[in-house]
């Protein structure tokens, strides 16, 4: 029996450059049997690898309601993500997973939702957002607040119109100075734009993902707006190697982000030791 560390093989079907350094890959498993069996939930992740360069963790970027392919959006910042970026359509990479817990989408039924995504954090929220779009009648008012440093750094630009048509109010913002000619979105940091929207806490769930500094100010804004820590859900990232609770590096206190997360409520995150 192959060890848990031996990945499935997946072929790159197509690629799309989201920004100068962010690319979305569409993958198809080489083995038809694996393609049938490999199922995931919104929020789960996998170990993606380039043979000779190593493995790295990325969230599955598409919803399990769209299972024909596996999609992954990554910024080329490290050794493995750089190597993945250098692969072309037709080439093969390794995928093992799915790992981790998931967004509790069933508990969101009938509620109003706000997705707040900063930068590449949008990649982790695309799967639950697509899930909501594909089960749109189950949910109330849905808002996506997506921000980036500049217009050029916004991802999934080509999909926003379809999301809007699908019943999601899409609000995009860039940091002051990041706007470009013809920009018709907001200008301002995500927490400020969130406060301007004046979305009340009643019957609403907020799903947040972004860099640590954004999360910090976003949670302050949410608290100010009257949201309880239980109403706020986030997905964390930490350096991982095994993905299955063994290698020891993604831990925050007693919690293994890979095994116990990556999805946590803000109530859980607040109780963590400040080791992340």
């Amino acid at each position, binding site marked *: *029996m*192959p*060890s*848990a*560390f*031996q*990945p499935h*093989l997946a*072929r790159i079907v197509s690629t799309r450059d989201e920004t100068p350094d962010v690319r979305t890959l569409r993958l198809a498993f080489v083995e038809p049997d694996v393609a049938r069996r490999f199922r995931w939930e919104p929020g789960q992740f996998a170990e993606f*690898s*380039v*043979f*000779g*360069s*190593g*493995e*790295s963790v990325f969230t599955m970027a598409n919803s399990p309601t769209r299972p024909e392919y596996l999609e992954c959006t990554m910024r080329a*910042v*490290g*050794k*493995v*993500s750089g190597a993945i970026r250098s692969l072309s359509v*037709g*080439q*093969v990479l*390794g995928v093992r997973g799915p790992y981790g817990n998931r967004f509790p989408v069933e508990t969101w039924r009938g509620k109003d939702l706000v997705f707040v995504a900063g930068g590449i954090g949008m990649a982790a929220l695309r799967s639950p957002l697509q899930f909501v779009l594909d089960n749109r009648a189950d949910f109330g008012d849905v808002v996506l607040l997506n921000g980036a440093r500049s217009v050029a750094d916004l991802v999934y630009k080509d999909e926003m119109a379809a999301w809007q048509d699908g019943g999601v109010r899409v609000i995009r913002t860039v940091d002051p100075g990041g706007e470009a000619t013809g920009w018709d979105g907001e200008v301002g940091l995500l927490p400020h734009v969130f406060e301007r929207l004046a979305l009340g806490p009643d019957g609403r769930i907020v799903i947040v993902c972004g860099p*640590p500094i954004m999360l910090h100010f976003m949670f302050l804004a949410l608290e100010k707006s009257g949201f309880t820590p239980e109403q706020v859900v986030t997905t964390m*990232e*930490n*350096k991982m*190697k*095994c993905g*299955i*609770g*063994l*290698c*020891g*590096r*993604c*831990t*925050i*206190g*007693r919690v293994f982000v890979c*095994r116990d997360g990556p999805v946590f409520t803000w109530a859980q995150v607040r109780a963590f*030791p*400040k*080791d*992340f």
Partner: protein
Amino acid sequence: MSEGAMASATRLTPDELHGWLAGMLGDKRVLAAVDEDGLRVFRSVERADQIALPTGKTRWSPKEFLFARTETLFAYSVAGNEVTLDGAPVESAEQVLVGVRPCDAAGFLRLDAIFLDGDADSLYASHRVRTTVVTVACDEAGPECFCTAVGGSPASDKGSDVHLTRVADGWLVRPVTAKGDRLTASLAGVGRAPSPEEHAEAETQSTRVAGHIRQSAIAREWAAILESRFHLPLWETLGRRCVGCGICTYVCPSCSCFDVTDTGSASCGERCRSWDSCTFAAFTRHASGHNPRATQAARYRQRVLHKFSYFPLGHDGESMCVGCGRCVQLCPVGLNVRETVQAVVAAAADGHDAGG
């Protein structure tokens, strides 16, 4: 676990013991504590006379025979757009570890708790199933030893398959598990039942050696106290001495963190797992450069809290540390985890020393 087997202890002469050990050499890989260039280490031996069962412990734990320093997970080859993976052949040859100290056998149980929990690690499991552990009760304690402070004992048979105790002019040999029964099956008709005096001698030795370990207990309740002291400024004071060399994690019987890396080229090579250390800065550093444990003090705190707080809180209070004392003995800057734990517990929650 051992009560029933107690009656089946056999008293062997040194010659009978070596005859038994020599019998294993034919069809099993035998690893024993040997002195090599002034260093005591576990090595594969070919002859029974190489197995001296020396007093004292080896420089580092024999965990590498269950959890290798580096191990191939699979081989890959890439030709154009096609990739072939070959899983590493599963090693099945039986191996016997002879002369394992109780602390190191306790370390195996900690590794079991980590690698055989939930998503069982099939590689570790394959090594575990083919390994038989022959422990030797300690007949002396080193100045670094503190097994009794963390629930162990110099005569413990926990984690052992066959337990040996040295008595005057011979050995008491006692199978502890079914694996131990199989390994001692060849002793049918060899040796004799131990005399009451020999049982008493073993008992006396155990009490005497335990008495030499004068370290006060690390109480089970401290696990929760330690977790609540995460923000204590004392961690910075203690941890800033750490140079991040990782020696404590390499010699530790229960440290089990690892890395997964590729060795080879883009066309062929192997994916391996290797020992890693939570005391290294790169251990937790993200590709973005952000490091959740940015300081050496934060990394030292992680190691201490994992052993004495996070692991026990998830394992019925059992310490992950087995008290072998190697990290205390070998730390180049004199850090002592046992004293660190005591100092953190003694400190008041506001960070000031309570005990004076």
